[in-house]
């Protein structure tokens, strides 16, 4: 099984070449084929993954640039595997979602390159390699927004690029500092140092701030989030799906993998402030979403809110003043991982539906629709499922993650969590209001010619929705992936 | 007794060769070959004559007529009359024709057809030329026909000739693939390219009753049907006689030929038909083996020619029954149906072999063929494609 991860990473790259070489303008079949191959590889990885072991598995270690401690070091633990599976799910979904006339071969090739970078980010265990993949995902995302985006794409793309790039630069500088102090880029080794304080004095705070900003931009965490609504709104449907479904998880992943193990002491000191930022994300984002008229922008803001929950739990865990509340930490971490996966699927689905509506109407303002339920009951029904999943209705996937996050964080940081509940409420308000104005009331004149879900669209939607139900009703199969990792991490942070 | 009748021709040749005792080896070799060649030519030219008249009579019967019945008893001397007519006709060569090519084409085509006859086992120990890769030889020689047809078309310097030749070559190349591929399962199963071996592998009877001919296995049956269809095309027979469809392009590549050259073409066509049928008999119908143990006393060559005649009768029957296909239908059929099915036959034969060549293998290979057949017909949407055509601008 050695080499499997490399295969997963490089198959999409090969696919990108193949798409370029494909003689027809529509490169989708080829891209999907390569997606399928790497997804099969990911499934094989899952099948051979030992859920009881908490360490890295399928490790591939080769010397790369010994002079600066860069290694080609790949491996997966539960979290990485979860994200690899998520990537394998979302990217084909996004490719299917993208309307064919809008995208040529280059689009698919770029998407595949981004997929490869995502796989790499989630499996690399050496900073240099990780950073390479991390940046490699940035460029395709920029191009995808810039070339295939909608209105205002130049501005949104530039903003996105500048934001994330500055964040990356800050992070790189911090890591260089760490490297000069400790002489290694290996995550595991760094985490071992982190236990006893990686750096001291001002340098530690500088490094912390650099990495924090880099990751916070990516998540994004309030107040580093202003690029996100623009980017998500402007990006084409498929790209929005990948951005929200997978790309935003890179930030959370970075927090779990880098910041929390490396700077436990620093986080403990400024923990309440960080929790405050998370709360701001949770409360202000859905409030802002409430004020949006644009469907995609609204979903984008809710996306910030959902990732805010993850941040809340992570900071609660890391800043926990109580020692030994491992059960709660496990709950919080499990919740975060679950939420990552769920949000990926649900938000991508929501963007998909926004895309469907946009494709039918040409516009995507909430007020541009009305009474859709009479014309397109199936579309409304399935879209409602995604919305209810997103607002955390029990029986659907969203609930599990949020419940565990709240359970874990409440025991550690009760007051913050109690405020965070407002976020849940406002999210519900936003969705219910959206449903009201989209689906009910008299049928709008402009919507009277809409087709209901086409067969091809059903084929995309049904599996994803079934997955939502499956996770909502019997989530054990997802928990099995990361339970051992959670236990080990809780021990690390506790 | 029956054994000696069975081997009567072999013994006769042996006797002939012993008369030359004492001559150098190469002389004996040459003589032996010449004997074989003459025997072949004699038999098949007679058969050609016979079939040409029989065809006319059978077609007539199908069309509720009498057919030739003036020359000789039941019109049996008709071919002689035809032959005389052909020989004394003026041989016209178009002025702007490429004369050499025009002249060589019928010779080459006849030569190729006759050469192909040489490797078929007509009876027990009655293979004229035993070549290790006999089947390959057959196809190699057969493929030269295309060149000959092209020469005819080009050499005539006539647009109908050229078009006919193009059509002929296109369809021959298209159907050569299924033809060869359907022969492959047999070759694989017997693991030999030698016709004698192939015939030998079909000896014996399952349960002492059903002969072990390959046509009685699912893959064999499927392959035989495909082979037969490809054979029809290769010999330019109805319903695939597009290259010489007289209502469209006069007579295709033979338009500018007359007299004996035309007769040669005609003969080559029939002989090609015999050759393909003979190969079919060899590959699938058990060669010269008797269909039942009780009938083994009948000489082997009789059985061979009986099977050959049956096949030829089917050829004629088909010609009398089916209309001509359209070119594009034919091509689509070749590439979209025949070729995949031929591959399936190979697969099914492999399945048959690895499932033990018994009943289990039989059922498994049947399953494979059934699945692919169903899938193919669904994919090709045959029900719609082969429905009666609706002419959009006709009214």
């Amino acid at each position, binding site marked *: 099984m050695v080499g499997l991860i490399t295969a997963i990473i490089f198959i999409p790259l090969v696919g990108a070449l193949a798409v370029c070489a494909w003689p027809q303008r529509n490169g989708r079949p080829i891209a999907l084929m390569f997606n399928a191959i790497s997804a099969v590889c990911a499934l094989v990885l899952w099948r051979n993954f030992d859920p009881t072991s908490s360490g890295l598995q399928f490790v591939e270690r080769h010397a790369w640039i010994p002079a600066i401690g860069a290694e080609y070091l790949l491996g997966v633990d539960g979290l990485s595997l979860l994200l690899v599976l998520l990537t394998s799910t979302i990217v084909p979904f996004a490719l299917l979602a993208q309307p064919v006339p809008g995208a040529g071969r280059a689009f698919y090739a770029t998407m595949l390159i981004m997929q490869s970078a995502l796989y790499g980010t989630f499996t690399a265990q050496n900073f240099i390699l990780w950073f390479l993949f991390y940046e490699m995902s940035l460029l395709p995302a920029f191009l995808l927004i810039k070339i295939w985006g909608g209105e205002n794409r130049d501005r949104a793309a530039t903003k996105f690029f500048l934001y994330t790039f500055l964040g990356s630069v800050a992070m790189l500088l911090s890591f260089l500092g760490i490297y000069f102090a400790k002489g290694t880029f290996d995550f595991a080794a760094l985490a071992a140092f982190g236990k006893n304080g990686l750096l001291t004095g001002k340098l530690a705070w500088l490094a912390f701030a650099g990495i924090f900003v880099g990751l916070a931009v990516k998540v994004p965490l309030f107040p580093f989030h202003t690029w996100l609504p623009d980017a998500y709104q402007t990006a084409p449907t498929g790209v929005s799906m990948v951005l929200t479904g997978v790309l935003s998880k890179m930030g959370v992943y970075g927090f779990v993998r880098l910041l929390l193990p490396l700077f436990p002491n620093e986080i403990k000191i400024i923990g309440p402030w960080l929790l405050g930022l998370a709360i701001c994300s949770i409360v202000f984002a859905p409030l802002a979403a409430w004020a949006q008229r644009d469907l995609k922008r609204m979903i984008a803001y809710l996306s910030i809110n959902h990732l805010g929950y993850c941040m809340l739990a992570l900071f609660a865990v890391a800043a926990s003043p109580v020692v030994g509340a491992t059960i709660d930490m496990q709950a919080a971490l499990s919740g975060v991982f679950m939420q990552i996966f769920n949000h990926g699927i649900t938000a991508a689905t929501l963007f998909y539906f926004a895309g469907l509506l946009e494709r039918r109407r040409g516009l995507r303002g909430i007020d541009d629709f009305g009474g859709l339920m009479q014309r397109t009951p199936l579309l409304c029904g399935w879209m409602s499922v995604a919305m209810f999943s997103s607002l955390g209705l029990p029986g659907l996937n969203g609930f599990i993650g949020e419940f565990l996050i709240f359970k874990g964080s409440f025991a550690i940081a009760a007051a913050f969590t109690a405020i965070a509940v407002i976020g849940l409420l406002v999210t519900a308000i936003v969705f219910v209001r959206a449903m009201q104005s989209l689906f009910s009331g008299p049928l709008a004149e402009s919507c009277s010619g809409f087709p209901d879900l086409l067969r091809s669209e059903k084929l995309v939607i049904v599996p994803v929705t079934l997955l939502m139900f499956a996770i909502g009703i019997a989530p054990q199969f997802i928990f099995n992936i990361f339970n051992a990792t959670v236990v080990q991490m809780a021990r690390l942070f506790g | 007794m029956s054994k000696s009748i069975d081997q009567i021709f072999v013994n006769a040749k042996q006797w002939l060769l012993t008369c030359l005792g004492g001559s150098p080896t190469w002389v004996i070799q040459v003589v032996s070959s010449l004997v074989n060649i003459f025997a072949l030519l004699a038999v098949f030219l007679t058969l050609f004559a016979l079939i040409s008249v029989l065809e006319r009579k059978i077609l007539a019967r199908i069309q509720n007529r009498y057919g030739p019945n003036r020359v000789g008893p039941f019109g049996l001397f008709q071919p002689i009359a035809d032959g005389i007519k052909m020989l004394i006709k003026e041989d016209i060569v178009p002025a702007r024709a*490429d004369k050499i090519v025009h002249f060589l084409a019928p010779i080459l085509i006849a030569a190729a057809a006759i050469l192909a006859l040489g490797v078929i086992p007509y009876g027990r120990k009655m293979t004229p030329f035993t070549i290790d890769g006999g089947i390959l*030889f057959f196809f190699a020689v057969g*493929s030269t026909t295309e060149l000959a047809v092209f020469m005819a078309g*080009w050499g005539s310097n006539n647009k109908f000739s050229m078009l006919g030749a193009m059509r002929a070559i296109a369809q021959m190349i298209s159907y050569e693939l299924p033809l060869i591929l359907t022969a492959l399962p047999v070759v694989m199963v017997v693991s030999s390219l030698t016709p004698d071996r192939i015939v030998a592998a079909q000896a014996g009877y399952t349960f002492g009753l059903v002969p072990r001919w390959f046509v009685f296995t699912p893959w064999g049956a499927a392959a035989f049907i495909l082979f037969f269809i490809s054979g029809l095309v290769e010999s330019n027979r109805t319903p695939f006689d597009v290259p010489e469809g007289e209502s469209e392009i006069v007579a295709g590549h033979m338009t500018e030929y007359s007299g004996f050259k035309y007769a040669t073409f005609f003969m080559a066509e029939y002989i090609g038909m015999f050759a393909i049928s003979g190969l079919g008999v060899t590959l699938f119908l058990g060669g010269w083996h008797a269909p039942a143990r009780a009938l083994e006393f009948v000489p082997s060559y009789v059985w061979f020619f009986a099977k050959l005649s049956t096949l030829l009768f089917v050829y004629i029957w088909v010609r009398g029954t089916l209309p001509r296909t359209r070119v594009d239908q034919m091509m689509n059929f070749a590439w979209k149906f025949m070729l995949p099915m031929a591959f399936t036959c190979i697969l099914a034969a492999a399945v048959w072999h690895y499932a033990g060549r018994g009943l289990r293998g039989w059922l498994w290979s049947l399953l494979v063929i059934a699945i692919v057949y169903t899938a193919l017909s669904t994919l090709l949407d045959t029900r719609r494609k082969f429905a009666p055509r609706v002419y959009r601008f006709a009214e």
Partner: protein
Amino acid sequence: MNSGAFILIAIFTLAAALAAATLRKLMHAALSFALAFVGLASSFFLLGAEFVGLALVFVYIGAVAVLIVFTILLTRRDVEKDRGFNWGGVPIAVAVFGGLTWSILKTQSIAIVAPRMPALTVKQIGAALMTSYVWPLQCVGLLLTAALIGALILVIEEKR
């Protein structure tokens, strides 16, 4: 192996080949080309490689020659123009022939007669193809497929 047969075949082959190279009419040249390959196949028979000979006939006459005549047909308008002969090639060809022949004749170690050898059966070739040569075989298969597709794409009408 018979010298008479060899000489016969050699003369036939070379004559046909020379015709293929020099005949003015392209169609005749192509047919001579096919003829040359018949001769070559015969010399393979003579050398005991029946299977290769048959394959040669099969491939060259059945496929390549037909392809060539088809190409001639498709570029007919151009073919019928007479272009003359580029005499500059003759000295080079002759020089190459001379040089090679000279070196062959100089090399004494190859002035040998054929050793006795058991006949090469198709079965042996098949076994070799399926065992030690299975990888090249697959590669060639892939190459042929690629060539087929490539040729198809090349001749697809250019879209204007």
